């Protein structure tokens, strides 16, 4: 009697960044779409502390478009997150030189951040550059310290120090108690 095949179906493992990069280089747009989903929040937080808030989303798109054009030059596909983070910093800095200041509105359209959020963002942007991005990744993108270290290529120790010192300054500038 033939034994019925009873192979349990295992869920397919999530493709790694490196696999997605290779697929994207080969022309698979869905693979690039998946990379976008994974790392757009990282890029958004990076550009947000460097460029006007109203232009962040367009800048995120520009960063990914630039990344896709340069993707064949990426030597180590597993290093995609820190690589695209570097592109984001570069493009955001270029944007800042020609950027116009976009002021928060008192009465924003639907889903716009509240005015207090703009005040906090302003305080965040005034942090020393070394801490600014790390704190943004924690508070804007909601990443934990280990995630930030993995995505940016910084050592966990550096991330921890940046978070601790950055939050201390932010706490003081927002009028909170700063004895951590």
């Amino acid at each position, binding site marked *: 009697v033939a034994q019925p095949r009873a192979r349990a179906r295992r869920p397919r493992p999530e493709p790694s960044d490196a696999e997605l990069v290779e697929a994207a280089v080969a022309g698979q747009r869905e693979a690039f*779409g998946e990379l976008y*989903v994974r790392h*757009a929040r990282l890029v958004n937080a990076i550009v947000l502390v460097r460029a006007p808030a109203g232009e962040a989303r367009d800048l995120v798109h520009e960063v*990914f478009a630039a990344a896709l054009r340069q993707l064949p030059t990426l030597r180590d596909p597993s290093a995609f997150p820190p690589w695209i983070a570097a592109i984001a910093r570069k493009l955001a800095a270029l944007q800042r030189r020609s950027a116009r200041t976009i002021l928060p*509105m008192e009465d924003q*359209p639907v889903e716009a951040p509240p005015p207090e959020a703009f005040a906090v963002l302003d305080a965040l942007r005034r942090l020393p550059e070394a801490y600014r991005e790390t704190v943004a990744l924690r508070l804007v993108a909601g990443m*934990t310290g280990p995630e930030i270290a993995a995505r940016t290529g910084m050592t966990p120790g550096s991330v921890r120090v940046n978070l601790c010192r950055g939050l201390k300054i932010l706490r003081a500038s927002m009028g909170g108690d700063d004895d951590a």
Partner: protein
Amino acid sequence: MRDDYAWDRTGERDAFVDEMEALLGAFDVQPRVAEGVAIAREVARPRSRSAVRRHAFVIAAAAALVLTLVAIAARGREARVMDRSFGAIEIPMSDPPVSIDPVPPEAAPRLPAIAPLPPLTEERARPRRARVAPLAAAPERDPREVQRENAAKIGQQLRRYGSMLERCVEEGRKKKAYDKGYFWLAFTVTAEGTTTNVHTSASRPYAPDVEACCVAAARTWTFTDTSTIGPEGHEVRLTVRLYE
């Protein structure tokens, strides 16, 4: 320790971190695969233009410059008798737009005449047998005609969002009484019906708050009837006037 909470959300809860996270989280994005695919599609689109199209752009730019200068001169003389309609939003039905507001309609450059095509509804009513017939044999539609159809569809759907832009202008006027100026609000409607590459240009005088408000509004817009919009999307440019 509160450091631990900031580090990996363990340890003693830190109300300040929670509050900051809640406020700054408003700037976070919720990326979708479709957006990444759209970017990939945009990048894959050939960027080089034919010599004819390059020249056409130069000619259009030169014409726009001349028309702007004429308009500036005309406005200087006729400022007192300008149309007083408030915060007008004009939706150009041609794409790419070739006129600059405010330009009298009669002064705007005209597109070459296009031979009338059979009504679209008849073509659609016919049973589709394209899968049997070779693709090359299918009659190609004039791209300009498709562009016009897209523009008309988008223009129709845009009307429900006009009030959002008017509100932005009204709010801006509460802070500053503009006596002149306009800007362009430009964006691309994707085949999925969302907007992308939303930006403003040609601001005169500079009205950052109104522009930011309009850009934020346009990013929330969606379009349901996008059946004729190709993968490259359809570029739209609106003229938003600041003065009364």
